[in-house]
């Protein structure tokens, strides 16, 4: 059996489909012929006439930020690679999409694999890389087969392999499958996994695999969607591309909306084009009849939760260029990296989980605590023990065994994980507990006091 054919709904007027332009065409299939018919591999041809440094400059000028969660400027990351250092370089595409609430790379891998391959070969050319891996989580078994097949097709047409399109540039690409561990999405863990070791994240510094990465050589690790954007930066030109977003956050972003909305799904929007309210009520059709908005996790499960009636005090640039204080309501929060950061959360992987007034916050947090307890790799004691303690406490609270001190204990455990671990999983598992407690204290106290 194969996956059902995927039909994308027509775009909302605010949407601007670049990554999903092909996929939203009726009858589009993942074959190379279809891709070429839709202008595929033209950007690669253009790239091969450019100097690698020109491509890196274009990516820098595009203000493309990583789409995997950390949001690091892509061109800056690439510029850490020294072209003439005499070392082999590697690119590893992070297709380990596992952040709860995020489901965009799945569709690219299944339905438009050549878009990724074209972006990857351009990226490899720009960074003087001859060997690349696409790391795909094993829970996407069909995607792995589809991408393998696409690589073979591209090889047969001279887009991958030796002497690509007669340019003298070589690049081999292989698919590597994970084995069910969320931690492998952390870039240094992913490299350990690819090296065949237990995927314990590496100690920093060095902070960037571009310094010491796969096999201790300079390595670029980028998310699937990020690599796909590279192709479009060349196609549209970096200025045109950057114009779509906000300063410092260029291009489109695929927002994945799930939970209690009428039309869950993913929506490709220019960065900063909509507020949270527009996303939930205009684009996703609002909540189910009679329900009220209660909470939103805006950037994947690790992002701090926002409460519906919250009012944030943020600093914004006034008309005279001075920073002024401004109050904004939760629904007026603009969906871009800067605004979500200024309200104490993050855009992360842009996985938006919406919860209405029927949801109990202790229950929701417990679900996430169980996730993090299961996925902690166990390398660092605060995270290995702490994530399990938090999960045990919230589970006990829900089972009717709440104790008055539970909220305080949860807070104490979470506060002692964040900042004390090798990788950002420590923060990722502490932030839900910290933010749910801060935003919904009355619910936690009530459940703790229940007898």
């Amino acid at each position: 059996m194969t996956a059902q054919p995927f039909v994308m709904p027509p775009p909302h007027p605010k949407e601007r489909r670049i990554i999903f332009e092909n996929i939203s065409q009726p009858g589009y299939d993942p074959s190379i012929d279809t891709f070429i018919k839709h202008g595929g591999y033209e950007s690669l041809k253009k790239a091969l006439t450019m100097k690698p440094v020109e491509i890196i400059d274009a990516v820098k000028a595009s203000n493309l930020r990583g789409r995997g969660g950390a949001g690091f400027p892509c061109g800056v990351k690439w510029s850490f690679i020294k072209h003439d250092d005499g070392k082999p370089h590697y690119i590893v595409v992070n297709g380990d999409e596992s952040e709860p609430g995020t489901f965009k790379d799945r569709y690219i891998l299944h339905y438009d694999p050549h878009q990724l391959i074209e972006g990857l070969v351009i990226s490899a050319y720009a960074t003087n890389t001859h060997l690349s891996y696409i790391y795909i989580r094993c829970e996407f078994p069909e995607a792995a087969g589809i991408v393998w097949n696409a690589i073979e097709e591209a090889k047969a047409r001279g887009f991958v392999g030796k002497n690509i399109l007669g340019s003298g540039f070589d690049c081999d690409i292989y698919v590597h499958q994970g084995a069910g561990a969320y931690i492998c999405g952390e870039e240094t863990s992913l490299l350990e996994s690819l090296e065949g070791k237990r995927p314990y994240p590496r100690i920093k510094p060095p902070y960037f695999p571009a310094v010491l990465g796969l096999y201790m050589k300079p390595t670029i690790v980028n998310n699937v969607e990020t690599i796909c954007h590279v192709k479009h930066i060349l196609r549209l030109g970096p200025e045109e591309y950057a114009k779509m977003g906000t300063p410092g956050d260029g291009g489109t972003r695929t927002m994945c909306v799930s939970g209690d909305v009428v039309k869950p799904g993913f929506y490709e929007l220019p960065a900063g084009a909509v507020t949270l309210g527009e996303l939930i009520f205009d684009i996703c059709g609002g909540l189910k009849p009679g329900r009220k908005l209660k909470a939103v996790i805006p950037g994947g499960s690790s992002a701090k939760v926002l409460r519906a009636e919250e009012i944030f005090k943020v600093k914004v640039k006034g008309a005279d260029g001075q920073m002024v204080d401004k109050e904004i309501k939760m629904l007026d929060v603009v969906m871009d990296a800067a605004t979500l950061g200024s309200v104490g959360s993050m855009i992360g992987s842009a996985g938006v989980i919406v919860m209405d007034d029927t949801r109990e916050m202790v229950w929701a947090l417990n679900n996430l605590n169980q996730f993090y307890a299961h996925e902690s790799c166990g390398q660092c004691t605060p995270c290995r023990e702490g994530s399990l303690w938090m999960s045990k406490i919230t589970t006990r609270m829900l089972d009717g065994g709440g104790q008055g001190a539970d909220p305080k204990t949860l807070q104490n455990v979470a506060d002692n994980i964040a900042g004390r671990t090798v990788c950002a999983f420590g923060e990722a598992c502490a932030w839900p507990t910290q933010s749910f407690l801060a935003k919904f204290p009355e619910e936690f106290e009530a459940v703790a006091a229940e007898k």
Partner: protein
Amino acid sequence: MTATTAADPKAATTRQADQVTPEFEAAIDEIVTHYPVSKRSASLPLLHYWQNTFGSVDDSGIEWIAARLELQPINIYELVTFYPWFRREAAGKTIIRVCRTLACAMAGSYEVKEKFCSAVGLDPLAEHHGFGEAPPTSADGKFSVEFVECLASCGSAPVALINNTLHEKITPESIPGIVGQYQ
């Protein structure tokens, strides 16, 4: 460890490594070529290939893969015990992996998992601890059911990965029909 209906690996009379064929070895050789810098990188794909062929990874499998990649058995064993995907015991012919995480849970995945268990004759409350043990498996060996963490399809929740196929927007009513496709 909770009891499962799967066979105890220690009681197995045949070692998986004794069933390795020349075709199997040729496939392994090809996989190793994907990793020109370090053979050790092939350990995950070899474990996948092994488990896909034999249904699980027994001691002989760990030793065979280690020897093939010029590693110590512990280098392979520590992967089998880390990654949730690998198991030391055979599971059912069809493995139903229901997503447990937030968006799916909000859409009813706990009920979905219980209904799957009932539909294939398993105790809905049977616990599964991982660590290489097979998920709860029906007496006829046809089905295993387990919870897994986020399958990255939150927009079409609740979902389940059944063998290699994702089933989306599952309702309790649709479950008998889905199970029927795999009978």
